[in-house]
């Protein structure tokens, strides 16, 4: 009995021999809207497998339909969602088109034995905290029954504590999740699926309190590709043993790539940047998509704070958003690395910085004539009060403006070495 559970546990957590698992949650179909990621699940799961996924969480019905994808000794581990609940239909925005319901219900769907017959390497079930005493009591009862069933058939049981309902506030959510983690372990969970608490310190405590492997979940999909990776990297740092990412993968335009990136972070120890880019970019440039700009000016305030420690403002930013009249959108004016300022400088005070490749001012050579300010075609070279030019240094290679842009209107792109010609 013990060995059966261990075999299955290893299939999930030890495909790479590092005790870590990158898993995809694709069980949304029987709880939320009929979205494309739910209906066209096969190609998404296939893409996740190509990306190197370690485990996939499915509803029992999808597990039957997609059984062929789990074949072979290198196939991913199948995790079965063993219960159903209606939380996404309690009037929340996930289900704009479904009939909202008024009260929370949780329902057991399969037994551990049935899950095993479907080929499961593990099951997951919810444990609700904070909604009502009745729902919490039901959750405890359902969880303990599953634990007993799983033990009988040698199936790892993953419990997913959720803090949800009118008693949950920002003041108590971390404590509730930590309590839920420990409750789940006391009930007999072999591993946990749990939301990130938002920061490394509180999540580290949660992992320590749990004492069993923790899989972090991703939550709603962000348009910023970094978010899911950063969250995962932080969770690993805090002691998580992997992830169970749902919408950030299944709603992604390229599920294979995001899974490969998550795997690179988990199994190869890559940094978020390295995983995102697939390589190290020695030189970068800024790239703009005007149509995406909403004019929020976060790029300008981020630019100022990146250059003045702890200060936020708009004036003297190294880039500028210009609102044009009417409904034509905004103009994004930034340093395009055209080099006209270098050419215009009569004293040779401007050069390409050898490490970042950005424009650099050598103050000892500058006589503050302002020729560069005149020459700049985008007009983004500002001047300090004493007349020194303020040039974009690309923040040394990680431009803060693109880092904060919420819509991708400003992006970081790879740039060929500005020194290639010289070297040749």
């Amino acid at each position: 009995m013990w060995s059966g559970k261990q075999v299955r546990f290893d299939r999930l957590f030890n495909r790479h021999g590092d005790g870590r698992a990158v898993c995809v949650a694709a069980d949304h179909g029987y709880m939320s809207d009929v979205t494309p990621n739910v209906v066209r699940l096969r190609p998404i799961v296939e893409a996740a497998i190509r990306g190197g996924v370690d485990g996939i969480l499915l509803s029992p019905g999808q597990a039957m339909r997609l059984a062929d994808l789990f074949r072979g000794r290198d196939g991913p581990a199948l995790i079965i969602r063993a219960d159903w609940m209606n939380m996404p239909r309690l009037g929340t925005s996930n289900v704009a088109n479904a009939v909202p319901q008024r009260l929370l219900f949780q329902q057991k769907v399969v037994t551990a034995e049935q899950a095993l017959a479907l080929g499961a390497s593990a099951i997951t079930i919810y444990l609700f905290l904070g909604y009502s005493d009745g729902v919490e009591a039901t959750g405890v009862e359902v969880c303990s029954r599953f634990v007993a069933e799983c033990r009988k058939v040698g199936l790892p049981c993953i419990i997913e504590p959720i803090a949800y309902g009118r008693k949950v506030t920002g003041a108590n959510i971390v404590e509730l999740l930590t309590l839920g983690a420990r409750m789940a372990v006391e009930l007999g969970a072999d591993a946990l699926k749990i939301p990130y608490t938002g920061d490394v310190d509180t999540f580290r405590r949660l992992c320590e309190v749990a004492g069993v492997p923790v899989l972090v979940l991703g939550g709603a999909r962000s348009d910023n590709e970094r978010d899911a990776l950063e969250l995962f990297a932080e969770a690993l740092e805090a002691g998580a043993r992997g992830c169970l990412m749902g919408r950030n993968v299944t709603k992604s335009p390229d599920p294979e790539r995001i899974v490969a990136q998550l795997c690179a972070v988990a199994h190869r120890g890559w940094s978020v940047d390295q995983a995102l880019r697939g390589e190290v970019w020695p030189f970068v440039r800024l790239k703009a998509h005007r149509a995406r700009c909403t004019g929020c000016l976060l790029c300008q305030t981020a630019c100022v704070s990146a250059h003045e420690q702890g200060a936020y403002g708009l004036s003297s930013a190294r880039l500028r958003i210009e609102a044009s009249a009417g409904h034509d959108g905004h103009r994004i004016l930034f340093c395009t690395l055209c080099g006209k300022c270098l050419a215009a400088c009569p004293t040779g005070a401007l050069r390409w910085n050898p490490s970042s490749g950005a424009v650099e001012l050598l103050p000892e050579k500058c006589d503050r004539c302002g020729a560069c300010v005149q020459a700049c075609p985008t007009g983004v070279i500002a001047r300090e009060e004493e007349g020194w030019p303020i040039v974009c240094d690309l923040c040394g290679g990680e431009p803060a403006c693109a880092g904060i842009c919420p819509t991708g209107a400003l992006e970081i792109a790879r740039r060929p070495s500005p020194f290639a010609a010289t070297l040749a």
Partner: protein
Amino acid sequence: MELNRRGYADCILRVDLTHGTVEKTPLPADAMPLVLGGKGLGAWLLYQEQPAGVPPLAPENRLILHVGPLTGTSAPTAGRFGCTTRSPATGTYCDNYSGGYWGAALKYAGYDALVVHGQAAEPTVLVIDDQQVALEPAGDLWGLTVPKAQERLRERFGSGWEALVIGPPGEAGRPLAAIFNGSRTLARGGVGAVMGSKRLKAIVTRGTGRVHVYDPERFRRALQLAFRAVRMSSETTLLRQEGSLNILEIVNVMGALPTRNFREGEFEGAAALSGASFRRHNWMRDYACFACPIACGKYTRPLEDGTSIEGPEYETTYAFGSNCGIADREAIIRLNALCDTYGIDTISTGVIVALAMEMFERGLVTAADLDGLEPRFGDARAALALVEKIARGEGCGEWLGEGVAAIARRYPEAAPFAMHVKGLEMPGYHPNAAKGTALGYAISERGACHLRGATLSELFGGAADPLATEGKAQLFRDTQAKKAVWDSACLCYFSAYGMTLKELWQLVVACTGFDYPTVRDLERVGERVSTLARLFNVREGFDRRHDTLPPRNLTEPLPNGPAAGQVVELAPMLEEYYRLMGWDMRGIPTAERLRALGLEWAVVER
């Protein structure tokens, strides 16, 4: 305490329009950890500096504009600002918040608050150019509509300036008058009339300074966590896709979409008014306020005659749409445009039109009373004609524009279905179908309001059964505290659809360095600030008698929908809330609770 290294400018700009003088004073340093800024600062200044009984349109009534410690930083939605004054519509404490770009400009110019009082001899524009402050004549602007005045100011001042402007109803002291800031507004309670009563047509501002935070590295980290929380939220994604209108169909399915002057809670034309419909047929581009990663604002494609707006918001669409029985998007856009042009509140105007329609259908008024108009529910042309009259203050528009409470005084038979609390028209969630929200409307310090802690999470957060009253006093109390913290830090409440109090606490602590050891310590600020606002109202004679709802909510069961048969059982929720807040059964904060909140100076014998 160096407040200017803690997110603040540490300066209050005081303008006395009667004497044409300007004074700059530091912030009340000891008070800032207690009230934080924004709403808290406004409530503190209004209660402490304004004597009781000042009429709202008297020169002595202060118009206080304020920002928070986070304003002007890169925190998500950190362009928010507010105003606090005594409302001409209700006689109560009244605070409003707006996005746009003016708030950041005020902060960068070097001010946490602007306190305007007195009355200028001539129409005036207040010019704040960093540390230079001047009063300039505005005779050429007086009488202009909002867009015309904004255009004239752009010509006069050029780019890099942000302007607050009122329209003709504000100049005339009308209780519907709003203050405009680009396409964004401080709309409720007639704050535009307070500005107009001071003969202040506009406030133009340019700021080139900086905001300094207490712990730069910790703040940078808190920013990262806050942004991620906002981005990884399906609610904010929906806000970007469908604006505030993303909720309309859900509210309708819950039976809580006020329809035909709150007679019903379901509207057959809801699909046509949904965010998805506007997105498909009318919207062409997103609009973001300063530092906002969400961008819930939407510009419409111009109609045939060139009419276009930034909007409509959910509240406008409910007020002129379902509540007037109108399912025509083009009509909603035109009604919204009319309100924006003259500078009046769309919620109150829509509720007035709906009341006029019901009164006409019931025969309480005739065409003779309404300048020949025969407004029935669903009649968009009549609605447009009425709004034009209200906006211009002409004919029947003169008495209609005084608000539904005033209309009910003129026609007492209309009182049972005049939808207001304390004189402020009701926003777009039917109290009979959402009991915690009903409690929120009844308690709200500025009259019927969905943004003073109303428990909207019961409708679209799934937090609790919306029809139950049990537990709602506690839920309202928690939501009210959270909302007051948001308004005091001065971020847009839509950021709270991604961030929780925990992320806000991380930002506030890193920005101010204040000693809030836990999230709950910040939550206490919210309770303190809401209590201060209550104290202002108590001093003006408001108490439990005014914490009530119209008879339509208390005694008239909803006829259909998921909430059919429901009325609001207010008293038990009210009393439980008073107990939780440590107020007596008249709704007055007890001396004991005031001491516990650090407000011992506000204890008086009553």
